């Protein structure tokens, strides 16, 4: 689970501009957060919270969140899907995790996300 403050993310956007978020979100994620007037801060917060919540399920030590390797995409139905790439995929495999499910919710000042790992079958057999 993770929670992200709108105030913090809005400050990052104001101080560093949209390009700053290319360090955390891949282009398709940024596109999902974009409206006709620019990046939607609440959507950004939700995406960031989802990545952090997903990372926590990997239970790795002494590693930073590989922001661009945990990709949270919007499915056709509107719900978020987690795509584990590169380093995140290797961390998940090492932890016996096949997939991660995540749910995002937001209100005025905060976005929260809850993630749960789906373990690989052979791990439990």
């Amino acid at each position: 689970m993770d929670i992200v403050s709108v105030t913090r993310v809005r400050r990052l956007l104001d101080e560093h501009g949209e390009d700053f978020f290319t360090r955390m979100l891949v282009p398709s994620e940024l596109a999902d957060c974009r409206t006709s007037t620019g990046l939607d801060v609440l959507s950004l917060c939700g995406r960031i919270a989802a990545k952090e919540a997903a990372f926590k399920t990997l239970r790795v030590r002494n590693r930073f969140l590989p922001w661009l390797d945990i990709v949270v995409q919007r499915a056709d139905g509107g719900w978020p899907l987690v795509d584990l790439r590169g380093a995140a995929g290797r961390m998940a495999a090492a932890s016996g995790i096949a997939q991660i499910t995540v749910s995002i919710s937001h209100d005025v000042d905060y976005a929260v996300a809850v993630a749960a790992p789906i373990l690989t079958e052979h791990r439990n057999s």
Partner: protein
Amino acid sequence: MTSPIADGIDQVKAWIVKRHPDREDIAGDLDLIENRLIDSLSFVEFVFLLEQVSGRSIDMDTLEVDSIRTLDAIERHFFAARVS
């Protein structure tokens, strides 16, 4: 006159203190992560700051946690005098 190394690490310390006004100073060996002075979100901005202050590009994928765990480690890894 301050050295570029002292100036660089002082800027890093000032950045952290500004975001944690409850702290007047940060010891060189204080664990910044365990003490939540740097979290996942601020880490991205922190790396951005380190790049600007040190003048070096930092690959977040290969960055080791221990290299930014304390101010002493940051000074060693990013501001140690380089022989040209």
